[in-house]
């Protein structure tokens, strides 16, 4: 009954989405106010219907109704409640339901917060947003209906992949989806602006907070996913250049570029058509990501089961959305007026450098991700493009980006002076150079890349602080500096924090890649071993029983210089449904690095294989990402940037 109700609500959502797409779009074209006014109501109704449908599915998982195919295939009665609920989006059908829920949530948010937008513009935004929902709802209803019954009903479910039974599953997919789907708003705003034939600074002011919101969720989602991989997969890696990771990274890169180019539109009225293009491309990458993950065309650790019908549907949808919007772009963009002039070394130019590098980076990642597919289609050979390629591309493209980032905020709009900025940054340059030479000296020239990474991190963080110091006139009038600091616009703090976050990530990547110490060893109780100056004493194992697994738990005392530092208790679990082994790493985070222990199965008698790590600065990665999000939040809370602020 509940399944049928959910199915019905989903069909209702499709109906409302059709209404919300056709009414406002036709209304706006014909100048019919009553048709346009349908938009908000349809958006609310569509959200309500999607929510009911989603709650129905959640309820089916909650009561473990195994007469529903998706539940039987992915759930189990013995599974902890948290994972029954989170398991809703741990599978193909449910994750699409989450996607649609987010899509309609954003539509409703625009309806609610966008009251100050011009009528026709708002109608068009809502219309485009609903049109996207129509596509996804059709996709669910025709190829991936989560409410399909299983006849006869299963007695017990298949269970959820134990690796997914982790708090990470509760937060990572929803955050990521909020980011992916949030970019749809930027897309809808861009298409609406093309339909209107006008892009003005007010447009950028409307679109920027939404993009910023999506970007924050995307950042948080990616960072959380990488943290999850770090502690769950048991070998301390946090980024694998897996196609699905790339699928989330590309929209992030483009969204980051979009955030910056929208500033130029807002402040200077320039880069309009480029910004529109970025908004379209950012969401297209979101869709492409969905295609890559959901169609099973690519070998990936995240890939869901492949189903050609689904792949073809998404590919067609992708073609319509991307092709249609780009065609509209080509048709309408010549109408846009050119923006203001600016000098070669003005802030605008720095932001263009940012945009060129970020979008080139996204393009390179795209090629690396799709190359295996293209080659397979071409001559049937299967290859994989590995981390060396992506790492190389990252170094080549991120380095100039970081260098330019140091200058950007110090340049003024319209007519900036590079030499002035360079003089201000001279001390930072010297410090960075000393870091570089110091590292070279300390490592005896063996780690030039590490030295280079550290130099960039020092340069970036130093220049951010230097810019802040100049902004508050710390050197000219130190007495009033604090007052000035407190009076700075929040958006400015936001920028500085986010840039500092980038620096921290850079620092974390460089140091943890260079100086991680790893030890693989066979140990029995009472033995000890040294890892990077820490002595790990193995105190044996104990058997434990969890809700749906049994495990052995190893105990390690870690001491350094006679002082106890940590107790680590990694587990080797055996889940019952399905029978699967997983290792649970035990991590002791410290400010300068993590101690990380994994225990494997017993090897003849009482000896266990263990893997121990010291991972310096690795938490700077998540800390940096967190700073970026906090920076985004601060910017968002700036009065001038509030969602739906008056133009």
């Amino acid at each position, binding site marked *: 009954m509940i399944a049928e109700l959910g199915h019905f609500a989903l069909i209702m959502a499709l109906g409302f989405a059709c209404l919300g797409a056709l009414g406002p779009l036709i209304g706006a074209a014909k100048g019919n106010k009553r048709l346009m006014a349908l938009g908000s109501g349809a958006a609310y109704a569509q959200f309500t219907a999607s929510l009911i449908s989603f709650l129905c599915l959640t309820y089916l998982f909650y009561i473990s109704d195994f007469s529903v195919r998706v539940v039987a295939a992915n759930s189990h009665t013995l599974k902890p409640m948290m994972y029954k609920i989170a398991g809703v989006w741990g599978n193909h059908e449910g994750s699409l339901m989450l996607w649609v829920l987010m899509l309609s949530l954003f539509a409703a948010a625009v309806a609610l917060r966008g009251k100050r937008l011009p009528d026709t513009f708002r109608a068009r935004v809502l219309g485009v947003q609903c049109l996207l929902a129509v596509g996804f709802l059709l996709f669910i209803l025709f190829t991936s209906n989560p409410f399909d019954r299983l006849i006869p009903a299963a007695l017990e479910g298949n269970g959820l992949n134990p690796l997914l039974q982790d708090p990470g599953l509760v937060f990572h997919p929803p955050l990521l989806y909020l980011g992916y789907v949030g970019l749809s708003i930027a897309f809808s705003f861009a298409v609406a602006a093309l339909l209107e034939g006008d892009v003005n600074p007010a447009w950028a002011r409307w679109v920027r907070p939404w993009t910023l919101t999506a970007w924050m969720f995307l950042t948080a989602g990616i960072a959380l996913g990488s943290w999850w991989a770090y502690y769950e997969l*048991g070998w301390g890696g946090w980024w694998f250049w897996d196609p699905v990771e790339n699928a989330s990274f590309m929209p992030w890169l483009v969204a980051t570029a979009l955030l910056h180019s929208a500033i130029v539109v807002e402040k200077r009225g320039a880069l309009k058509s480029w910004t529109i293009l970025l908004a379209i491309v950012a969401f297209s990458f979101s869709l492409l990501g969905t295609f890559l993950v959901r169609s099973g065309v690519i*070998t990936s650790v995240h890939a869901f089961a492949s189903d050609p019908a689904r792949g073809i549907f998404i590919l067609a949808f992708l073609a319509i959305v991307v092709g249609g919007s780009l065609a509209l772009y080509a048709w309408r963009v010549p109408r846009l007026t050119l923006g203001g002039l600016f000098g070669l070394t003005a802030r605008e130019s720095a932001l263009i450098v940012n945009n*060129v590098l970020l979008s080139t980076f996204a393009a390179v990642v795209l090629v690396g991700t799709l190359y295996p597919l293209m080659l397979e289609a071409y001559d049937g050979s299967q290859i994989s493009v590995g981390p060396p390629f992506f790492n190389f*591309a990252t170094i080549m493209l991120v380095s100039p980006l970081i260098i330019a980032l140091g200058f950007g905020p110090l340049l003024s709009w319209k007519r900036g002076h590079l030499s002035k900025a360079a003089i201000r940054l001279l001390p930072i340059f010297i410090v960075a150079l000393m870091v570089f030479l110091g590292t070279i000296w300390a490592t005896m020239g063996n780690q030039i890349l590490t030295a280079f990474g550290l130099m960039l991190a020092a340069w970036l963080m130093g220049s951010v602080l230097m810019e802040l110091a100049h902004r508050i006139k710390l050197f000219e009038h130190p007495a009033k500096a604090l007052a000035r600091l407190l009076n700075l616009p929040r958006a400015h703090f936001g920028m500085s924090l986010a840039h500092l976050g980038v620096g921290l990530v850079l620092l974390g990547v460089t140091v943890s890649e260079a100086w991680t110490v790893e030890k693989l060893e066979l140990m029995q109780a009472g033995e000890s071993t040294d890892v990077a100056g820490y002595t790990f004493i193995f105190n044996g194992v104990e058997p434990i029983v969890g809700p749906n697994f049994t495990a052995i738990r190893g105990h390690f005392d870690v001491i350094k210089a006679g002082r106890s530092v940590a107790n680590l208790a990694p587990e080797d679990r055996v889940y019952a449904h399905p029978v699967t082994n997983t290792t649970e790493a035990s991590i002791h985070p410290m400010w300068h690095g993590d101690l990380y222990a994994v225990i494997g199965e017993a*090897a003849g008698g009482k000896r266990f294989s263990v*893997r121990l790590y010291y991972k310096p600065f690795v938490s700077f990665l998540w800390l940096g990402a967190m700073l970026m999000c906090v920076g985004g939040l601060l910017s968002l809370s700036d009065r001038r940037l509030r969602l739906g602020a008056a133009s």
Partner: protein
Amino acid sequence: MKTRKNQRIVIITSALFILFSAVGLVFYALGGDSVNLFLQPSEISEKDMKSGQYFRLGGLVDKGSLSRAEDGLTYHFTVTDCVTDQPVRFKGLLPDLFREGQGVVIEGSLNDDKVFIASTVLAKHDENYAAPGTMPKNTDACQHPSAGMYAK
């Protein structure tokens, strides 16, 4: 108008320069070592893989083939596509979800004795526990008794 034009030209030229060098770099790198073949066991001889040449091996872990060496840290097992069996050696902790009879993707290279020395065994966390690219292409071959568990 001349300065404006000049500026735009300089900006656009430098932007294009970066773009082109990056694209050139991409194609250069894609021809190099960073691209690995992804093979199933029976394709290894077809492609004439040399010892030491890095590639990805996909297939099923043969049931009953997993054993541990004396040191307790080195594993031996066979990866099969039901046509050819490829012996594999791996030193380290096998990842979660590694089981006999299931799909794996392994990175490494052959040694002189044609044993695949694995440097990384990839963990799979697919909802259906079947990694794409590990299912034997020739499923008919999997009907023979020793590989009965692979038949779908």
